[in-house]
């Protein structure tokens, strides 16, 4: 049974006070569940960071309520909150001399006395976090010598060592390459499942979020927060709320965002997946379309057009 750990009801957030109030987010309703990864998506400036701030207890709602395990995050004292909620922030501050192990051990801070001495139990937790993130082999490496992906995983390991039921990550994949994006998200999803944590990830990678998360929250200017499993949102077309202009739409067949373009008048014969790419290349080139029809053959890959044979699309485009 999945547990509701963070509940927002009619939540309105913003900055300023009195007459100068500037509402950023209004009437949000949400439910963060344990044991699964939830991805928060939305365009830049829509107020994702504001929502994160409210979850971290750094701001009071204008109206409505936000409850972490039954009480507002801003009413928790720092100690108690640091045992409920761990974060990975988007600000990049890394002491280059620190080793991965030392970084992960910092996650134990809420449980330590003034001297910061780790007990055997703390050391065990650190080891388990390193294991869960598959970072044991980097244990003694210094942060300054790691790649961005490794460093981000180390930050996740630190948050894991803090041993909180809720983890919030603000754009953890933003500086990473494609493979590392998948790996980090997969790791977070594993953590959510195996450790029964509620993981909330702010991200801009729609396709990876669809691939890896069990729940999407879509924030858009002026509309309520839409939440649901990625598949539901796709089938009901709600995912298109992420794409404010009509220029783009979510192609549910291919699972990605594509541009609207005029249907071409050219006829292309051949296997579907090849036709797609040839058509795309022709449209992108901006050149006039060939008058004759185009035929594509596989094994070997050839394009036939205007009585000529091409081995690459670029060759065809060149003669147009």
């Amino acid at each position, binding site marked *: 049974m999945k547990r509701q750990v963070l509940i927002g009801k009619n939540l309105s957030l913003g900055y300023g006070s009195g007459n100068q109030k500037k509402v950023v987010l209004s009437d949000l309703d949400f439910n963060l569940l344990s044991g699964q990864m939830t991805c928060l998506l939305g365009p830049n400036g829509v107020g994702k960071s504001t929502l994160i701030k409210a979850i*971290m207890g750094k701001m009071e709602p204008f109206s409505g309520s936000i409850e972490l395990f039954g009480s507002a995050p801003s009413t928790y004292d*720092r*100690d108690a*909150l*640091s*045992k409920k*909620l*761990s*974060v990975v*922030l988007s*600000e990049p*501050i*890394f*002491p*280059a*001399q*620190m080793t991965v192990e*030392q*970084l992960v051990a*910092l*996650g134990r*801070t*809420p449980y*330590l*006395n*003034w*001297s*910061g*001495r780790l007990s055997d139990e703390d050391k065990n937790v650190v080891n388990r976090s390193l294991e869960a993130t598959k970072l044991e082999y980097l244990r*003694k490496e210094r942060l*300054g010598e790691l790649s961005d992906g490794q460093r981000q995983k180390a930050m996740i390991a630190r948050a894991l060592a*803090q041993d909180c039921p809720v983890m919030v990550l603000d754009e953890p994949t933003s500086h990473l390459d494609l493979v590392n994006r998948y790996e980090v998200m997969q790791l977070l999803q594993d953590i959510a499942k195996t450790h029964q944590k509620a993981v909330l990830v702010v991200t801009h990678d729609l396709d990876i979020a669809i691939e890896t998360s069990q729940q999407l929250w879509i924030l858009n200017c002026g509309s309520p927060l839409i939440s649901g499993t990625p598949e539901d949102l796709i089938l009901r077309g709600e995912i298109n709320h992420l794409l404010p202009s009509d220029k783009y739409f979510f192609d549910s067949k291919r699972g990605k965002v594509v541009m609207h373009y005029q249907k071409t008048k050219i006829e292309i014969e051949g296997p579907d997946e090849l036709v797609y790419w040839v058509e795309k290349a022709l449209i992108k080139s901006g050149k006039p379309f060939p008058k004759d029809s185009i035929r594509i053959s596989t094994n070997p890959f050839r394009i036939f057009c205007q009585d000529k044979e091409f081995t690459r699309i670029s060759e065809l485009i060149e003669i147009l």
Partner: protein
Amino acid sequence: MKSNRTAFLFLVCLLFLGMIFLLNLSLGSVEIGFSEVFWGLITDHWEKASYREIVLNFRLPKALVAILVGIGLSLSGLQMQTFFRNPLAGPYVLGISSGAGFGVAVLLLAGSALGFTVGAISPWSTAFAGVFGAGGILLLVSAVAWRVRDSMTLLIVGVMFGATVSALISVMSYFSQAESLKLYTIWSLGSLGGLGWNQVLILAVLVLFGTLPVIASTRSFNALLLGESYAESMGINSMKLRWLVILSTGILAGGITAFCGPIAFVGIAVPHLARLLWKSPDHRILFPGSAVVGAGLLLLCDTISQLPGSAQTLPINAVTSLVGAPVVIGLVIKRNFSKEF
């Protein structure tokens, strides 16, 4: 293996500190043998009665002051660097030395500038003037610390306070008599000597009280390495820590400057040396490490300052910079440590 290296380094540094300590006691206008000092201190049996007088009442207090000042300034510098996350921060960035200087300047210069005379100038009176000056600037900084959330803003305001107060001192120097100006200039060059046992005791108490709050928040300083937001997410009260830092630095840097004048360089350089030696950002290692290195470095500088001709001594403030700056420049260029901070 790593903890072995840490312990070994501590041992080496402590041995070095002991050696420098004995060397420091044996050198001076009257040269007293190394072993003579060693056995004299242990058995209280001296070859000449004058040796006992020289060592116990002149050189020993001075050496102890060097150790206390080295510890105090280094710890104060380390906490400032971590708190402001700025490798150039030091004990004086909040304007404390300028504040103390202002107090002393009022005592030494304002009299001649405004045409009244102050009573006899003693280590006590300059110390009081320094404490008042440093305390005043600390109150101003605290007033700002109440209002601003961002520690960088606090840093800038501290530096600006320092600049303002220095300007006031310049104005006073411009209008004051040559003799009092010289007194002030000598004070501003720093001096570890000239303090009696009473003053050494007070300095020791100040350093102890200034150090305790820092040691007690080792955990918070470690968490602060990741920045204020992360520290707060791990349950650290950064506002409380800010007050501890202001209080501790006020006591350490303020007290030391009041008794010994401004001593440049140690506070900024020693934490970097400790980081390079122990290759760790962990304050459980860096606090004791900086303390040992700081004490050793200042003793070394004091020893060097009495070497030339052996009868005269160089101003300690000049020696610390002359000795230390090349060392740090060399290390920075070789290790590129601005990235390793």
